[in-house]
């Protein structure tokens, strides 16, 4: 199988991640942060090591501010519901995933808060103007994706962070599509809360997400329970990360992520990103050579930055049909709406969806050639 669905989850995983998870299962089988015997403490140490690696990876000052969740959706829910106030307002981009939209829509339907959608333009200053227009005295935060999970375009999140802080708003970044692919320094970018998954570009196992807090952000909890600490007291602990990590964590996943982070550091992720973009540009050139294709991601545009994601359609066919055809030919891509209805409305693809191609570090040029050959047949 040629796997080009890395925006959903990366595959294959590096061998060291597979070995790491196996080792976790056999060597670190105890629960972490609870008991006192040797294996329990060693397991806790492995979790701590991963926390430190995450902190180094994103330049987070305080290791306690790295919170392990089970996925990015959970992290975003914890961020949004952790800061929401009755009658407040959020501003989000028109590229957001349902992981942002649905929690906000639910809060809105429950009469708790409202949200406004600002359009991302090709020019940064126009995007900033759109967001600035949405700010009012009820606004508490700007939420923006690091890159569209459908079209790959990168909104000007650094500038949006500056805008948010100019108005004393919180800035929340959904970095799911970029983490492990495009380096991020949380301090330099002045992100207040960063959420991402561990199983996409970070190449870890599924079932691990990251919620990273910066600038002394205080979140209310949405899940309470056992933390292995202060058990006599019924109130939830107030200190991070325990406050936000109730219940047994995904120990296997976290240890796997730890190995994945080491792997990414060794591979130098800048190089990986460049290679993935090179492959997609090569693919786009082929699509451009045949007018049966509609291309929504233009990697050759000068003023737009892209994550390694490309969306296209074959004229006269639904995206699901093309994805199914490619699947029959041993190629894994995703068709449909990719849980991002706003982005599809923006690109006027909400009726047929798009075929999304997302390579990884392991994708070769010969894989893209195979896809091209398969597409030649369907585009006849």
């Amino acid at each position, binding site marked *: 199988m040629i796997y080009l669905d890395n925006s959903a989850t990366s595959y294959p995983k590096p061998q060291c991640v597979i070995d790491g998870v196996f080792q976790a299962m056999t060597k670190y089988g105890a629960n*972490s942060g609870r008991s006192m015997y040797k294996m329990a403490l060693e397991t806790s140490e492995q979790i*701590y090591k991963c926390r430190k690696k995450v902190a180094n990876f994103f330049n987070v000052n305080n290791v*306690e501010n790295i919170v392990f969740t089970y996925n990015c959706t959970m992290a975003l829910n914890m961020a949004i519901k952790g800061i929401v106030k009755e009658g407040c307002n959020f501003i989000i981009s028109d590229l957001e995933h349902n992981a942002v939209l649905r929690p906000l829509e639910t809060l809105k339907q429950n009469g708790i808060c409202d949200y406004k959608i600002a359009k991302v333009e090709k020019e940064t200053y126009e995007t900033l103007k759109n967001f600035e227009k949405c700010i009012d005295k009820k606004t508490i935060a700007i939420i923006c994706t690091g890159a569209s999970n459908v079209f790959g375009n990168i909104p000007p999140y650094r500038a949006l962070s500056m805008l948010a802080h100019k108005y004393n708003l919180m800035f929340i970044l959904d970095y799911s599509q970029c983490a492990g692919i495009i380096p991020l320094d949380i301090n330099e970018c002045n992100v207040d809360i960063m959420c991402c998954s561990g199983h996409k570009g970070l190449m870890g196992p599924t079932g691990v997400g990251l919620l990273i807090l910066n600038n002394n952000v205080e979140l209310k909890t949405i899940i309470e329970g056992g933390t292995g600490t*202060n*058990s006599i*007291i019924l109130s939830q602990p107030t200190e991070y*990360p325990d406050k936000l990590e109730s219940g047994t964590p995904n120990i296997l996943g976290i240890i796997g992520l730890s190995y994945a982070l080491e792997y990414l550091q060794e591979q130098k992720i800048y190089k990986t990103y460049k290679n993935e973009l090179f492959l997609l540009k090569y693919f786009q050139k082929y699509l451009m050579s045949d007018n049966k294709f509609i291309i929504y991601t233009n990697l050759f545009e000068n003023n737009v930055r892209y994550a390694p994601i490309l969306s296209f359609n074959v004229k006269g066919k639904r995206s699901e049909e093309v994805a199914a055809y490619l699947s029959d030919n041993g190629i894994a891509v995703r068709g449909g709406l990719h849980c991002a209805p706003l982005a599809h409305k923006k690109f006027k693809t909400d009726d047929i969806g798009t075929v999304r191609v997302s390579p990884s570090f392991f994708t070769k040029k010969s894989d893209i050639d195979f896809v091209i050959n398969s597409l030649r047949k369907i585009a006849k």
Partner: protein
Amino acid sequence: MNKMYIKFSSVTHAMRAKEIIELNGCKVIIRKNNKPLKNDGCGYVTVVTGNTNNVVNLLNINNIKYTGYGYQ
């Protein structure tokens, strides 16, 4: 040699403390708090051996939260 016992509610805080204290030349072992006071609930203790004069200061400077300490 004096042994210093520092209590932490969170294993993450205990591990961060271990790292910083060891960088300053002391030996640190982490274990569960096996003699918790009524209000301690569950928690961890770091046992520090070596020159412990500056340890509390180190924890404070690095903003590491501990719930108590003592010597034996």
